[in-house]
């Protein structure tokens, strides 16, 4: 008794039914639900029950019901493998879900074209000359697809062989009977059933090889639809009429009624250090690309940034360098400013926080928050140095580490450098002022607290409504803060370098940096324009959208603290609607470190000889969007050479060189045919995706779409071969003109799309094209390529855009920025007694640590140090005994003089080295054997002279 259990609309059931008819089995079909009690063993459907055995993999069951002829066995097996691991999952994932994965879809398209090239009107079956289980299985899998008109047009268009094969099988009586016995709805539904019944696991991108996608030319695999082609045709023929004119540069930029007004800020870099590449891509560069994109779309765009200058760290740095905090700020402000200028970061204003405007606004916001009841005073214990007359910030106190087992004497007030643990300044043993060394006293000091718990409900509702536009990591971090519950945060400090608290009795206190730094955005805007309130307290009819770019460590301040302050004011300040946070950028799998000299810092980039546009391109290409990414020199060179030079640069240059060489530097006459419109439709697709990606500030994706356009262009040129056509007849010449003209127009589009990413390159291309500024505009509403450069347009002079970066140069740069590496061989061997002392000390430390019961992770590094020290001691001892032995040997000699023995010893050593070299070079025994004999003779001589028996060399090895 053979039973097929199946749910409804399951195409795999067709496989079994048809196979059973061909195999002449008598089967009954039972419709069940997955949860049905009959199927105890599995919930995969369909399942075939034969004599107590349940076959739940459809291809296996079909194979069992209709086994192939033995000589076809191997081929059948291969096709079954192919169907189960490629065709079936890719069709289920493409047609059975709403998520669109281009890679999986391409796999499906490749599968279909493989089939199309396998069958033909003469080869009627996939394997052999007769029908086999392979035909049945594949036909069943494709049945709901080809029965649905839309899907058929989309996927089987031009695949006539495959279609013919499908229709011919359909006529067979077994297929007809099965279709009658078990009805399947045409379209997507059966594929949803396929996905759920056979439980295809989520296919990660690695499951399908990328190679296929790469090697197959893209515009063959993704044919644009009729509508897309028609739209491309229409847009092209309309020309640039629909495009608005770019806005004139008006300073200051202000929000305008009825237009899109975009305010962009980048996290204020802290002034006491030189920014590294990670800092640059994390905020200022990302913000810049987005700002340039907004300007390109004709939005009123203001991009604000500046240096964050107040706080303890500046004071510390000033002490270190022996100048005033203001001088430190002035010095580093210049460094920051020049670095960003070199990277072409186009701020509307790059300001700083040490301005009168900052003081005024910070104090005003504080007073109003206080008035609204969101502040309270609490007393906090702090260390006061009476000699210096100042409260000591954590970093200004040093003393013994309070953690048991760590006896480090110079722990800082916030962290111990020896054990790495966090320290509470008040717990230090024997604390002392870092500046004068006096013991500070503990004193109560009153501080202001921002009452976040009171603001929490307001903040909660605000976050619910706005956080949809934030990057994912920003949302996660902010939500986790809210989930934990907010606590009052101290916003003042007893320091000197900052904005003073404007209340009597508190003038000697300043605001904590995190409170006043975000206010910097407002004060810097005020420095830019007196009408700053139009941006920050916008009128109802000219609303402003605020985008803030930062690295993820800054998210709490921008998502919780700063909005809480603004909401507490209740004065209509604009709050952030898009927090765009990046993850971290690593340097060659490590971290950037200024102190160790590892990594590339802003000012180093200029000295590498690599243009700033290439830096921008690469940093944006590896922008750490959803996870940490790393900067790699090799990758930089590869991306430059493959993407910029060979793809983009090659296309841009070729199009113009042809125009210059064949058509006198003028855009030739163009008569577009179907192929050209297909190309335009493909580019339109990328253009649309580009706009979508950059609008969501997915800058990495944006760059990939630009590169796809030039890739399409290259393939088009390669396929059309204008250099051949131009030598042909009149018709061919006309064709060459069209191809070159279209390529020039795509180049013009590329120059526009590149503007946010690589402004210099974009300008160079536009100059080469002699393109007018009027066409340098993007219209997000009509993202279609138009005829920007009309026939007869005079072009400029083409020249190559990019240079190759040689691997040898990369190696040099890699070495240059790898930092000072401590090589072990360079460390002088310490003398035995010093090492012994070190070992005892370290051993004691480990004992104390272990007995204190701390975790293994804490004591393990110390143990490692101990082991290392012991090894050093051992080798030191050995080398010293060797010296002693040598001395002894010479002393023991009676018969031969010391000089003679020394000579023999030298010879022995030389010969031994010779033999070793020979052996290690892999020379045959016949070659080294005689040398060994000589060595042994020498040794015998030495033994005789010294009276010590010779030791065979080989056995000295440990």
């Amino acid at each position, binding site marked *: 008794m053979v039973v097929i259990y199946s749910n409804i609309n399951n195409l795999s059931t067709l496989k079994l039914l048809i196979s059973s008819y061909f195999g002449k089995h008598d089967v009954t079909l039972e419709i069940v639900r997955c949860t049905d009690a009959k199927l105890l*063993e599995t919930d995969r459907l369909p399942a075939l029950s034969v004599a107590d*055995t349940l076959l739940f993999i459809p291809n296996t069951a079909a194979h069992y019901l209709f086994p192939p002829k033995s000589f076809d066995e191997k081929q059948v097996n291969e096709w079954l*493998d*192919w169907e189960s*691991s*490629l065709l079936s999952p890719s069709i289920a994932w493409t047609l059975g879900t709403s998520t669109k994965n281009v890679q999986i879809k391409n*796999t499906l398209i490749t599968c279909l074209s493989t089939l199309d090239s396998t069958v033909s009107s003469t080869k009627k079956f996939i394997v052999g000359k007769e029908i086999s289980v392979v035909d049945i299985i594949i036909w069943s899998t494709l049945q709901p697809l080809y029965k649905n008109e839309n899907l058929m047009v989309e996927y089987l268009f031009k695949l006539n062989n495959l279609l013919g094969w499908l229709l011919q099988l359909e006529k067979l009586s077994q297929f007809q009977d099965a279709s009658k016995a078990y009805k399947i709805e045409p379209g997507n539904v059966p594929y949803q059933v396929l996905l759920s019944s056979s439980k*295809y*696991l989520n296919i990660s991108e690695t499951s399908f*090889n990328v190679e296929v996608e790469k090697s197959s030319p893209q515009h063959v695999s993704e044919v644009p639809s009729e509508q897309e082609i028609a739209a491309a045709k229409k847009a092209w023929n309309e020309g640039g009429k629909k495009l608005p004119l770019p806005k004139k540069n008006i300073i200051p930029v202000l929000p305008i009624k009825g237009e899109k007004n975009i305010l962009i800020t980048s996290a204020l870099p802290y002034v006491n250090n030189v920014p590294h590449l990670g800092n640059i891509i994390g905020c200022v560069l990302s913000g810049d690309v987005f700002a340039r994109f907004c300007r390109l779309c004709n939005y009123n765009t203001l991009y604000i940034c500046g240096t964050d200058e107040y706080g303890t760290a500046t004071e510390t740095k000033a002490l270190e360098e022996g100048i005033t905090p203001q001088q430190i700020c002035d010095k580093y402000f210049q460094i920051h400013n020049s670095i960003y200028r070199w990277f072409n970061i186009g701020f509307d204003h790059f300001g700083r926080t040490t301005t009168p405007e900052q003081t005024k606004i910070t104090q005003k916001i504080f007073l109003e928050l206080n008035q609204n009841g969101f502040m309270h005073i609490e007393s906090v214990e702090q260390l006061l140095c009476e000699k210096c007359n100042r409260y000591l910030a954590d970093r200004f106190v040093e003393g013994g580490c309070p953690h048991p087992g760590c006896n480090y004497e110079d722990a800082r007030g916030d962290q111990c450098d020896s054990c790495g643990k966090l320290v509470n300044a008040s717990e230090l043993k024997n604390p002392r002022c870092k500046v004068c060394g006096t013991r500070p006293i503990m004193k109560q000091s009153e501080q202001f607290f921002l009452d976040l718990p009171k603001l929490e409900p307001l903040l909660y509702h605000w976050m619910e409504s706005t956080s949809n536009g934030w990057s994912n990591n920003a949302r996660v971090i902010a939500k986790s803060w809210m989930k934990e519950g907010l606590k009052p945060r101290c916003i003042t400090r007893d320091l000197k370098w900052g904005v003073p608290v404007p209340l009597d009795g508190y003038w000697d206190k300043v605001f904590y940096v995190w409170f006043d730094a975000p206010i910097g955005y407002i004060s810097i805007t005020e420095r830019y324009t007196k009408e700053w309130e139009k941006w920050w307290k916008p009128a109802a009819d000219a609303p402003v959208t605020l985008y803030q770019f930062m690295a993820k460590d800054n998210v709490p301040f921008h998502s919780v603290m700063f909005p809480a302050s603004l909401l507490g004011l209740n004065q209509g300040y604009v709050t952030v609607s898009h927090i765009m946070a990046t993850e971290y950028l690593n340097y060659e799998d490590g971290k950037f470190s200024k102190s160790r000299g590892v990594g590339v810092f802003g000012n180093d980039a200029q000295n590498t000889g690599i243009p700033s546009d290439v830096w921008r391109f690469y940093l944006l290409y590896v922008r750490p969007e959803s996870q940490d990414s790393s900067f790699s020199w090799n990758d930089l060179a590869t991306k430059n050479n493959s993407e910029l030079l060979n793809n983009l640069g090659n296309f841009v240059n070729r199009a113009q060189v042809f125009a210059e060489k064949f058509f006198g530097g003028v855009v030739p006459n163009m008569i577009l045919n179907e192929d050209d419109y297909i190309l335009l439709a493909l580019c339109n697709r990328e253009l649309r995706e580009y706009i979508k990606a950059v609008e969501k500030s997915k800058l990495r994706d944006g760059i990939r779409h630009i590169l796809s356009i030039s890739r399409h262009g290259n393939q088009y040129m390669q396929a059309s071969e204008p250099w051949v056509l131009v030598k042909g007849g009149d018709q061919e010449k006309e064709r060459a003109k069209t191809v070159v003209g279209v390529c020039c127009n795509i180049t013009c589009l590329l120059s526009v799309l590149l503007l946010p990413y690589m402004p210099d390159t974009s300008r160079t291309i536009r100059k080469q094209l002699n393109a007018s500024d009027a066409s340098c505009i993007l219209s997000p509403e009509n993202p279609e390529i138009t005829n920007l450069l009309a026939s007869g347009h005079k072009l400029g002079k083409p020249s190559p855009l990019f240079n190759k970066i040689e691997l040898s140069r990369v190696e040099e740069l890699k070495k240059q920025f790898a930092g000072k590496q401590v090589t072990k061989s360079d460390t002088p061997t310490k003398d035995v007694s010093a090492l012994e002392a070190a070992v005892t000390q370290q051993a004691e430390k480990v004992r104390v640590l272990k007995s204190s019961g701390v975790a293994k992770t804490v004591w393990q590094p110390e143990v490692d140090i101990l082991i290392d020290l012991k090894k050093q001691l051992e080798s030191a001892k050995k080398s010293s005994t060797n010296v002693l032995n040598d001395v002894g040997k010479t002393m023991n000699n009676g018969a031969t003089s010391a000089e003679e023995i020394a000579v023999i010893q030298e010879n022995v050593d030389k010969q031994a080295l010779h033999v070793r070299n020979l052996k290690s070079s892999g020379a045959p025994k016949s070659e080294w054997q005689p040398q060994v004999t000589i060595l042994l003779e020498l040794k015998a001589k030495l033994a005789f002279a010294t009276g010590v028996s010779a030791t065979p060399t080989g056995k000295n090895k440990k």
Partner: protein
Amino acid sequence: MNVNIIKCLMQVASYLKVQPGKIQIGSNLIPVRTINDSTTKGFVSIIFEMLKEAKCNFTNPLDIAEVRQWLEYCIVYTARADGSQNIENMLKELNNLLSTKTYLVSYKMTVADIVLYYMLHNVMGNLSYLDKEKYLHVSRWFDNLQQNSLVRQKNTIVDFKTNYLIVAAPVKH
């Protein structure tokens, strides 16, 4: 899940005492075996070729069908199960299917058991003791297989200690 398909096929070849030939991963992650100028594509096909070379014949067509079924299961589901959720589902399913069986197919060890053993080796090695207990039938089946040194080859023995007290109540010094 990190399954090295090539390594798995090499081990199967070594178990069956046939020449592995040259095994590579071709496009779309499909394994390709080349031996004596003939190429075979696809995981199941390669194993069936090896069985043929090893002269392993099954008499019962249903047994072949079941072996085929498990091989397809291994390559389509087991090898692709990544992420703890998928692995958990798969182990649950296997545990259910193995609850009434000693071996996957019929009453004796077949190549299906061997292949699944190689594919699961990593997963089983990383399970906690509590999880090993949770998938008790899989653990029993796995432990039974690994005792056979021909099957195990160079793989490490996965520990299935039954004395869970050690874990539940660690000794305090």
